[in-house]
Structures are given as structure tokens and as C-alpha cells.
């Protein structure tokens, strides 16, 4: 029987990362900081997948799913950062509040 201390710590990390990521998405007004919040959220999801794989005895399936999530998350970050760069060039700001009221 595996000790529960490591899964418990991993569960605490998952919940903490998800909470911090959600908080970041809610409070930030900067477009790049939104991507940072999303990254934190996805790290929590990655750990959750691996923890689920460990608890169910299917570590390799959890790793495979985590790999897919890493690829998807990286692509999302790259596209979002390229979008942020273009928005900054076009409108001169990264503030979400200002962007939502701008007309070009």
C-alpha cells in the first residue's frame, strides 16, 4: 500500500495552482498576464492528470495525456503571445479594459 503523503501533497499543489490561476485570470487586466494565469491553471491540470494516473495505477496513460496537454498549452501560449504583440503594435496598449472600448 502506497503512502498517501505524496498524493496528498500533490492534491494540495493541484488545488493551490488551480486557485491561483483562477485568481490571476479574474484580477488581471494585462493581456500577457492573462497568459501567465492560464499557464498556472494548466500546470495544476497537468499535476491532476499525473496524480489520477498514479492513484489508478495507470501512470503511463496519465503521462501520455499530460504530454498532449503540454503540447496544446504551448501552442495556445505561442498564439496568444503573438496576438498580444500584434494588439500592442496596433492599439498601443495591453490593457483589457482599454481594448474592449477601442475602435480602429
Amino acid at each position, binding site marked *: 500500500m502506497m503512502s498517501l503523503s505524496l498524493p496528498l501533497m500533490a492534491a494540495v*499543489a493541484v488545488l493551490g495552482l488551480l486557485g491561483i490561476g483562477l485568481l490571476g485570470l479574474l484580477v488581471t487586466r494585462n493581456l500577457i498576464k492573462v497568459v501567465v494565469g492560464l499557464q498556472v491553471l494548466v500546470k495544476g491540470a497537468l499535476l491532476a492528470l499525473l496524480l489520477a494516473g498514479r492513484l489508478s495505477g495507470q501512470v503511463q496513460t*496519465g503521462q*501520455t495525456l499530460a*504530454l498532449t496537454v503540454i503540447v496544446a498549452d504551448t501552442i495556445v501560449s505561442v498564439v496568444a503571445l503573438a496576438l498580444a*504583440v*500584434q494588439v500592442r503594435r496596433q492599439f498601443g496598449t495591453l490593457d483589457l479594459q482599454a481594448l474592449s472600448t477601442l475602435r480602429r
Partner: protein
Amino acid sequence: MFDLLIVAAMLGCAFQAVRGTRLLIAALWLAGASALTAIMMFRLGAPEVAVIELSVGAGLVTVLFVFAINIAGEEPPVTLRSLVPAPLAWIVALCAVGLGAAMALPNLRVESSLLQADKFATVLWEHRSLDVLLQVVLIIGGVLAVLGLLAEGRANARKESQ
């Protein structure tokens, strides 16, 4: 004890990344959180994904953040009022964490003492080949999207200069 230190440092780095006012420093805190996440993954028995997270999450994504912040230019570190009031955001986040803890922590037990016998490569290439196909499609789509975005920016700049 070691796990507790790792988790505390990881959450501290993530919190600093989210709450910091300077973008470049936030990106570096995020890299620290990624590295500590990779250690936690290794401790959970997933060394392959831990290495990928360390190289992609802490390496490539950090370089991309620094590159994007460098091109976009960092905005002055002013503290703007958030769109959602901060107390409300804290309440929502704490409620979400509390609900997650109430649902997950009581059921946190090892269902099976048997470990999967297959190797990572076997599971990835034979059992989850659709995932590999999806990854290839995602990478090609992402590259095309970035190229399109950058080409659009260049076209606009050329139009304005004429």
C-alpha cells in the same frame, strides 16, 4: 517534508507570477513554478513528462514570454483596478478551491496497487496514437496561426508606410 517544501515553493512562485506588477519578473517566477512542477512530476513517477515540462514549460515558454515582452514593450508597473473586484475574485477562487478540496481529498486513495506494465513509448505510440496525431495537427496549426499573425502585422505596417 521535501514534498511539502516543493509544494510551498511552487505555490509561492505561482502566486508571485500572478500578482507581480512587472511582466518580465512574472515570467521568471512562472519559470520557477514550472521547474518545481517538473520536480513534483518526477516525484509522482512521471520522469518523461517531467523532462518535457522542464524543457518546454520552464525553457521554451519562458523564452517566448521574454521575447514577446521585449517586442511588445513592458507597460509601466501601475496598479490598475481589476475588472472583477479583488475581494470578489478572492472569494470565488477560495470557494472553488474549497469545493475542489471537499470533493477530492476524501476520495484520495490508491485504487489499484498494480502498476501499468507497458512502457511510456508503447502507450504513446500504440495505445494513444490518436493523441500523437492530435499533437501533430496542433503543432502545424499553431505554426500556421503564428505565421499568419506576423504576416498580417507586416502587411499592416507596409500599408501604413505607403
